[in-house]
């Protein structure tokens, strides 16, 4: 289980950039995210949606240990994580790819070595991770010959071999064609069955609808909605997540204008 409690991240603001009218500026600081609470259970896929700059990726980076929170606590399997402590979660950044000079299985093997596997254990764990992600058919293929969907599966296998306590996926299907997106969704559903909690940041409303049980809608660094996807759709008088996000955004714009 992964839990974020009261997570706030703020940066000092240069004097010339301070704007008292900006809701994210408090005194001398800019608040990237403010008091975010989030709990993801094993086997659950939790979606984070919101506009550009709403703090989605910041939350993910904090949970991955790539950015430190100004306040708040992260619990992994019920234990609080100290500053600078490795969280043991797997993070798939939106920017990043496989090492182009290593085959698919060598990419996975490298992360296995980082996780401390050696010898026969390393071979076995590599094969298991590749098999779990359906990558065994192209394990000796070089990354340049893989489709985007296949590459993403290998990247996930690379995370799985480290035995992550949770998976954090930042726009994993961004820029993928329809077929690739559908294949990737299948992979994620398969992954969720392995009881690993997953947080998925996505701009793709269809993907969120297909994969997520719960979602968090972030607006200007604060939680606007958190709960079941179905409730979110219903609360915004919509039939799809995409429509619900649009309606919610309009409501927020109206509130801001008033």
């Amino acid at each position, binding site marked *: 289980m992964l839990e974020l409690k009261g997570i706030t991240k703020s940066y000092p603001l240069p004097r010339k950039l301070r704007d008292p009218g900006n809701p994210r500026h408090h005194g001398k600081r800019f608040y990237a995210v403010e008091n975010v609470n989030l709990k993801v259970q094993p086997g659950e896929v939790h979606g984070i949606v919101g506009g550009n700059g709403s703090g989605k990726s910041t939350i993910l980076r904090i949970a*991955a240990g790539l950015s430190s929170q100004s306040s708040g606590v992260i619990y992994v399997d019920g234990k609080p994580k100290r500053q600078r402590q*490795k969280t*043991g979660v797997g993070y798939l950044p939106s*920017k*990043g*790819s496989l090492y182009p000079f290593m085959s698919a299985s060598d990419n996975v093997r490298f992360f296995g070595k980082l996780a401390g596997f050696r010898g026969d254990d390393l071979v076995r764990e590599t094969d298991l991770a590749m098999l779990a992600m359906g990558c065994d058919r192209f394990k000796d293929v070089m990354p340049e010959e893989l489709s985007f969907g296949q590459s993403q599966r290998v990247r996930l296998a690379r995370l799985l071999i*480290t035995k992550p306590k949770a998976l954090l996926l930042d726009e994993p299907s961004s820029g993928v064609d329809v077929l690739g997106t559908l294949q990737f969704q299948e992979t994620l559903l398969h992954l969720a069955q392995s009881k690993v909690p997953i947080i998925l940041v996505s701009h793709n409303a269809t993907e969120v609808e297909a994969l997520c049980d719960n979602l968090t809608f972030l607006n200007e660094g604060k939680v606007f909605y958190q709960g079941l996807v179905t409730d979110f759709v219903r609360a915004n008088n919509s039939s799809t997540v995409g429509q619900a996000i649009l309606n919610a955004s309009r409501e927020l714009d109206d509130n801001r204008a008033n």
Partner: protein
Amino acid sequence: MIIAQIERDLLKIWISIKKALPLFLIVLVVMSPLLFLLDKNTLAPAPTPIDEPGIEIGIEQNLRSDLSLWNYETTGIKAIWFDSKDDLLEALTNQEMDYALTSTEIGELQLLVGKSKRVKDFLADEIVTFLASGTNTPVVVASHETGAKGHSNSPKIAWAAVVALIVFISIVSSFLVWEERAMGYLEELIASPASHLSIMISKLLAVLITVGGAFVALFVIVLLFTAGIALFGDASDVVAQGAGESTRSGSGLTVSTAAYILSVIAGISSVAAILVIIQLTIRDRMIISLVTLTFNVPLFFLPLIVPVEAFADASWAWMLPVVNIYGDLSYAMLQGDASYSFFPGMIVNLITLCAVIAIGAISVGRIKDWPSR
């Protein structure tokens, strides 16, 4: 964990080199004949007998009565001066004479040789015998290192090699750190189970192994090229001279060779670690280029600004690994001073290296605060 990361980095470099290998080979094939021709044209002409005007010898005034100076014109001596010991030493230092015959405190005769290169000629000509013929006291031949300071190119060549190494380290660290960072690989590595310290150490070692390997390869190429010229170009003296210089330089370093080597390795490693940290922490590529340029280029000119004498007591230089390398190299190569101890320099360089690696580990942690886009 560290080895796995180094393996990956070296594999990346090897793949890149393999891709660029045909280009290197083409350049080598095109350039070799050209270099060969250029080298042939610039080789020094075969030594021809020069009509030596003769040598000048100074003799301490109070030895005048002890020596019978007969028939010296026939031995190639142009002139003999008599003067006080201090004036003779000054004349030797200013290269106004070739040799000075003085007495030591214990009453020995001492022949001071101004231009040490000519010792062999001098002994071969049996001038010593001639000079000593009027006395029963044996003559001790000693080299008086006149004007050596500021005239020898060895420390400056060594310094140029060190700075070239630093520039190359800068290039490789950019390749292994900045590029990884820009592509997002480093971020994934930091999020992986690899510790910050292991990332820092592995990057540093990968940079050093690559640079070390490249320099060994370059050394072998230069050696083969020089040997080739010696074989086909009748320039064996070039090789012989080079070997001679090495032997002579090496002899001065016998006392603390290991400390000297460790000191230089630790110093260069510190510099490499500093460059890796620059690549890790500065966000703007242009500023990185500017910092590395301003860091590297002035190093070339350091020997012109700071006199070698400043390193005789190089305690202040131990503050900085870069300056320390220069101090060690210059002092060792120029003075060949057995009493010069490299141990303090080595210890300070090692401490600096450890401190820089620790700072590097923190700077890897600082990557966490990079903006996500």
